[in-house]
């Protein structure tokens, strides 16, 4: 009651000041312009490197264009072609498999690490750093290191043979059955530490009293996790899932470095497919259409995540 009276008084004083100074129109207009002046340089840069190329790209998605001669309008022809080409559905399927497996894998491992390292271990800070280090290394560098490890004559197979598990050793990146899991494994290995940090931050937001009260009531580790920790970790889970979804949909570096999309296109993803159609096959219009499709898929996924986040907030 007191607050609303004060607010009304403040508003009355401000209106009186504007009337006294007679600056209503000009001052307000110039005050409104200030943010735009600050935003203009960034907007110019953003439009040059992002907005204009994206809009042009979206236009070319509806054309047949070889990058050399004038584009020819084909309407939705490129999109239809993607779904009728034999490799089109394969590319989409590989991408979805990677998205599902990576999102589940990286968040599960990240959460597991966070729960493990939340405890008062003497080495927890060292371990946290060790697990986080791969996330700050270039994905390309990580992929090349793993390519060496997973080579037929690489350290992994050598170690398996030394342990008497020679039958398990195989050309991991050359076999269609193992190449895609290998890529997902490398990605999960690299980014689990990053997701561990997200979940550690979430765990620190859970009040110790709540946990203690649950334990006094006789809750074991599983019940504590299921009914106390997990519900309060939902905002962190939403962020973790949203980030991992976007990363996995736009995956490019690791696939190019590890398998180049092979063997026989069995690890081709939307990202690598867009690149190859444009820069190897010279089909810029078709490539732009697939890229636009990728943007659409990512937007839908991100919108779903945002909706879930808002529901949590409310």
């Amino acid at each position, binding site marked *: 009651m007191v607050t609303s009276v004060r607010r009304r008084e403040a508003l009355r004083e401000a209106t009186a000041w504007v009337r006294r100074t007679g600056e209503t129109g000009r001052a307000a*207009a110039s005050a*409104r*312009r200030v943010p*735009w*002046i600050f*935003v*203009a*340089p960034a*907007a*110019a*840069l953003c*439009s*040059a*490197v992002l*907005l*204009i190329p994206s809009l042009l790209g979206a236009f070319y998605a509806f054309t047949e264009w*070889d*990058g*050399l*001669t004038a584009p020819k309008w084909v309407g939705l022809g490129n999109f239809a072609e993607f779904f009728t080409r*034999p490799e089109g559905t394969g590319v989409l399927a590989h991408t979805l498999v990677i998205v599902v497996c990576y999102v589940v894998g990286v968040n599960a491992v990240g959460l597991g690490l966070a729960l493990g390292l939340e405890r008062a271990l003497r080495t927890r800070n060292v371990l946290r750093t060790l697990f986080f280090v791969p996330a700050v290394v270039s994905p390309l560098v990580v992929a090349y290191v793993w*390519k*060496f490890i*997973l*080579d*037929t*004559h690489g350290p992994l*197979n050598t170690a398996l043979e030394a342990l008497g598990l020679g039958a398990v050793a*195989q*050309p*991991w*990146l*050359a*076999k*269609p059955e193992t190449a895609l899991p290998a890529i997902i494994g490398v990605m999960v290995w690299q980014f689990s530490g990053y997701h561990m940090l997200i979940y550690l931050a979430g765990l620190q937001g859970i009040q110790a009293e709540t946990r203690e009260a649950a334990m006094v009531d006789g809750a074991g580790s599983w019940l504590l996790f299921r009914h106390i920790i997990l519900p309060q970790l939902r905002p962190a889970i939403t962020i973790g899932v949203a980030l991992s979804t976007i990363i996995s949909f736009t995956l490019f570096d690791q696939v190019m470095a590890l*398998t*180049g*999309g*092979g*063997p*026989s*296109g069995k690890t081709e993803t939307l990202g690598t497919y867009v690149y190859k159609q444009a*820069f*190897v*096959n*010279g*089909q810029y219009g078709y490539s732009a259409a697939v890229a636009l499709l990728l943007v659409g898929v990512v937007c839908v996924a991100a919108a779903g995540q945002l909706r879930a986040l808002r529901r949590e907030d409310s």
Partner: protein
Amino acid sequence: MSRGSRILACGALLVPLLAAGCANEARDADTLEISTISGGPNDPIDTVVREFRAANPGITVTVKKVPFDQHLQGIRRRLSTGRPPDVVTTLPGYGESSSSASLADKGLLLDLSASPWSKEILEADRRITGDGTRTFVYPVSSQAVGTFYDPKVLAREGLSVPTTFSEVLTLCRTVARKGKVAFAMTGQEGAGLTIFVGLALAASDVFADDPRFGERRLAGQATFAGTAGWARSMEHFQQMKDAGCFDKGAAGSSREAAAQAFAKGEALMAVGTTVTLQLFQAGDANLKLKMFPFPGSDDPAKVRIPIGPAVGLVVPKKAGNPGLAKKFLDFYAAGRERYARLDASVPAIPVRTNKPDVPDYAEALRPYLQAGKTAPIMDQHWPNPEVHTQYASGLTEILLGKKDPGQTLKAMDAAWTERAP
């Protein structure tokens, strides 16, 4: 949003467009711009440019070198701009979207038929360097596919160079029994050595009976799946795999790992082109390798050597200084024998002869070249890279024991397009 703010926002959007428009500055009339691939320390283009500058005082020559992949990807973009470079290095024939024939088909290259060297281009290379009547590319160097080996290693193992395909299989089995492999191999995407073995086999299996297959396939008069020679070449590859010619994990080995296996003597031979010598020397310049013709047939008379131009130089139609560009190519061609010696390559346009040639370490291939027992580097006739990808993938799947070879040929036909992309 106020009117002023709207103007400000529009300005912010237009500035980049105006800046992009102003970036296309004019080039000096005496300036020659060359766009090429980053070469080694003995890249002949550096010497050619230096001597060309000395012979033409007052001109400015700029050379922009970028790595191989980046250069190939950038060619189309640069040719589509208002002022492309005056001279551009590219791959002759088809095969890549930026190969010379793909660009010439779109009318983007200058006709170089009037150049003195144009008439000296080998008959077999005319379809690669032009369209039969016009010439669009100056073929700089030549490459031939053969089998690298270290004579000392082969002698130490008590083996001799095979001269028929059956002898190749026998040698593979003998070497496999000793715990080694006959041929270094990798099937990894984009790095595979499978393609060289495939081309070496197809040279004998296909081109001995049908020397014009490449042109007939381009004209739509033949298919891969419908040609007995191609089926035979795939069967031969399968037989090599079954005879233990390659490492069991070859499909998953990197090119570097295969080259190291060869350098260490774990793999006794490697099929490749003459331009891959440095890869197989694995940094050891003292390794004196030799090359013998890969016998893709049991009839020595039917053995053929794949040979063709390795790289070429083209002049874009929109080049700022086409006259100076042509003069540069003529200058390069006049001294090509001397320039090729700098990086131990062989000029694609032979000097004092009308026969193709090879480096001295591949002298065993020379009698075949002299006798005209050659085949093209086949993918230079393939209109898009997807055909090559299907072929390489099919060979890798044979290494993995996965695919019926006939399916690969059908996939290559399915990937064939009438026009280059």
